[in-house]
């Protein structure tokens, strides 16, 4: 393939591969997906457990199986992939994308439109400032997962897991399967960070103790980790004196949150939302730079990969439309506001051009019947009853284009009924 790139997609995880498919289906000629790893699939390559694709394919697939189906489609659609290719710079104003690859060297690409699909990364230890030593044996759960599932090595024999994000829960079970001991999962909040089904299938089924309102307060060891001190916390998340307990372990896995990875987005000059940590987007998944679109965990951290793929398809299609001159630059921007119990949501604007879905997470769990709803200038335009609402699981608000044609703003929220 030669000539000008119409749509350039950065990152070949679930969002990027779907964006490639979406762009080609919309009629873009040259669609290129860049991937810094040697293979396609992003983090799903190392997610060898089942549980993916229940909604999209109506069956339970492993991460690599799920990705394989999309990658196959992308090849059939004529999407070009460049692996081992890292984007290290995007120039604002010109939207020039600088890439490097061992065979191709350093190249400057000038596509008609760009889709950001870089995904997210794990919060490191430094983000939570645990006092103590700095021995080996402390890993983010995802790094440990790469070692075990991709490289075939064990990071340790006796693990403590801090945080109850999904990767931490999955890794707790994985460590048991590989013959290690898991001393427990410790979560500072009063509710789990990950999906309930993972608590059941990864912890409860294996008798792994799960401690809410408890955190690690000290790291012991200079060379290799020797143990951690854990303590219960009060309502302000401050450790309660007298509840400290020493737990012997040689491994501490961190599952303390995910952060959208937006170094390149910042270089490109798109607005970043202070709460989601991802680009501000409208319902076309267009950022504040009209030629740049974004989808998946780079925008907001999703709970299910099906949603990431769906958003990738939409972003890719709209990036193709932009490249083909089919998106007018003067789109309306109707702001979306989050109500009292909304922690984060995306998109933050809708254009009213298409029906759209706003994804959101609640701040506090509601363990009884409730409703997720949207109002436009005070009038209810969407309402859906739920059995519960939990911070670990996303909720959706569906907005019909015809309901927002003459409105000034939209508010979304979840409240008990």
């Amino acid at each position, binding site marked *: 393939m030669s000539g000008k790139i119409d749509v350039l997609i950065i990152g070949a995880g679930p969002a990027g591969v779907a964006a490639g498919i979406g762009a080609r289906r919309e009629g873009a000629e040259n669609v290129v997906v860049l991937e810094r790893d040697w293979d396609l699939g992003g983090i799903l390559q190392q997610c060898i457990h089942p549980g993916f694709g229940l909604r999209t394919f109506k069956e339970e697939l492993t991460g690599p199986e799920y990705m394989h189906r999309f990658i196959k489609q992308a090849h059939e659609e004529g999407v070009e992939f460049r692996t081992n290719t890292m984007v290290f710079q995007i120039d604002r104003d010109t939207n020039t994308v600088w890439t490097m690859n061992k065979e191709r060297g350093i190249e400057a690409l000038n596509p008609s439109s760009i889709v950001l699909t870089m995904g997210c990364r794990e919060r490191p230890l430094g983000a939570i400032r645990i006092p103590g030593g700095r021995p080996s044996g402390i*890993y983010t759960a995802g790094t440990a997962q790469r070692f075990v599932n991709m490289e075939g090595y064990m990071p340790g024999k006796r693990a403590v897991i801090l945080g109850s994000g999904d990767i931490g829960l999955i890794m707790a079970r994985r460590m048991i399967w590989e013959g290690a001991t898991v001393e427990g999962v410790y979560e500072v909040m009063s509710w789990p960070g990950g999906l309930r089904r993972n608590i059941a299938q990864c912890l409860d089924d294996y008798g792994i103790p799960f401690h809410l309102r408890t955190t690690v307060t000290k790291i012991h060891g200079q060379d290799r980790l020797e143990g951690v001190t854990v303590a219960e916390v009060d309502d302000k998340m401050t450790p309660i004196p007298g509840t400290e307990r020493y737990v012997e372990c040689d491994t501490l896995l961190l599952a303390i949150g995910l952060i959208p990875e937006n170094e390149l987005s910042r270089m490109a000059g798109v607005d970043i939302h202070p709460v989601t940590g991802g680009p501000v987007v409208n319902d076309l998944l267009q950022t504040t730079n009209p030629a740049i679109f974004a989808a998946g965990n780079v925008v907001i951290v999703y709970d299910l990969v099906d949603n990431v793929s769906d958003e990738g398809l939409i972003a890719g299609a709209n990036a193709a439309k932009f490249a083909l001159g089919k998106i007018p630059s003067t789109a309306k921007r109707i702001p979306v506001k989050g109500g009292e119990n909304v922690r984060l949501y995306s998109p933050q604007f809708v254009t009213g051009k298409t029906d759209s879905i706003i994804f959101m997470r609640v701040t506090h769990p509601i363990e009884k019947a409730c409703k997720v709803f949207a109002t436009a200038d005070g009038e209810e335009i969407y309402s859906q009853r739920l059995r519960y609402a939990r911070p670990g699981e996303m909720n959706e608000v569906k907005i019909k284009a015809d309901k927002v044609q003459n409105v000034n703003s939209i508010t979304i929220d979840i409240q008990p009924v």
Partner: protein
Amino acid sequence: MNYDIVIIGSGITGASIARELSKYKLNIAVIDKASELPAGASRANSSMIHGGFDDKPGTMKAKFCVPGNKLWHKLKDVLDVHLDECGSYVCAFNDDEVKHLELLLEQGKTNGSPGVEIISGDKLREKEPNVSPDIVAALWSPEAGIINNFEAVNAMIESAQINGVKLFLETVATGLLLDDNGNVRGVSTTKGDFIAPVVINAGGVHAGEIASWAGDKSFKIIPTKGEYFLLDRSTKGFIHSFLFACPSKAGKGITVLQTAEGNLMSGPTATEQLDPEDRSTTPEGLAEVLKGARKLVPNFPVNMNITTFAGVRANTESGDFEIRTLKNPRGFVNAAGIKSPGFTSAPAIAEYVAGLVKEELADRVTLTPNDKFIPERHNIPRFLYLDMAERKKLAEKDPSYAQIVCRCETVTEGQVIEAIRRGARTVTAVKMMTRAGTGRCQGGFCCPRVAEILSRELGIPLEEVTRHGGESKLLVGKTKEFLLKKGAEA
């Protein structure tokens, strides 16, 4: 193993002395217990090149600080080291503190610190808009700077190695060897005896113990912990220089600075402790740093923190450096008690120590100038800082420079391979020499990749790769082997 001189410790002091002495035709060994450099206080400090106004005239600190500062401004180019020549401010919050600034100003003039002056709080805020509105005046020291201390120590010891010095890591000195006359014969270590008529003690927090082997009890090291916050590099420009609070009896106090690489940083505390190796951070210490940081910079963006760490510095009871040769045993030199402004002073201390060896130990070693001395040393190419044409050239010449290993700091595989070629053997050594793993994900992404490259380049199994030597292995074995072994045990 026979040498002319053995230097114990390869922190900035030992490394600078080694380089200085490599200007002479000498057979020199430097030993250090660490697996990578810098390790002790030279790794975990404020990375400050001080202006020289803070030290009481007449002290050794005052004697070496200003000359050391001047040497670093030259060495930064010779040794290819990042030195941000940003200047420093001492901030006063009230009239009493302004009086203290005047004292420091006088002291600075006496010490020969160039260009020091007192400016108003408003003038300071013109340059540094994020400092406290309560600061009424500041002492400006234009010659102060902030160095990349990881680079500086490695540059110094590499330059010494280029000129023939032998470096022995993971080598712990265990005692002093004396000859029949009771004079220095060498050092015993965990890797065998190092025989030499001259031994230089640059042992940092352990220098007191090492001196006691020579029967020297004239000073005592008080290990003093300093804790720090290090923030994401995207905080670059929040402040542009080095901010001190007005010093108190407890020391120079909590400072706020922008590192040579652009990270916002704050620290240190000053907590005396018995254990020279305890570098753990504490809730109390970190709270104290945060309080101090917010006093100077009220909106100190602590939510951008990427790591906290602690260093242990070698304070002395005298409060001054302890640098001298011993009369008995002959051949023993102390370069001890080197704490702030130790990093600044190191090149000047090195010249002084070389002079001591030349004048006072002429009967033991002869210092003949080495006319083949090469002053320059080139850093591993820093991809992040190269312009696009240089990057392209580098990648064409060696494709491994077109492969990113550390995405936060844009470190390429080529840099990692070059660090290994220059002696890196651990993940932390690669970090010290290339900055891979110093960024916002703190090695989450690059640690497995660096470990793989170490394994491949050194021809060792991945499970043998360590974080920082000793028992700090990253992995405990292969998955299935581990499971089978467990099955067999059961």
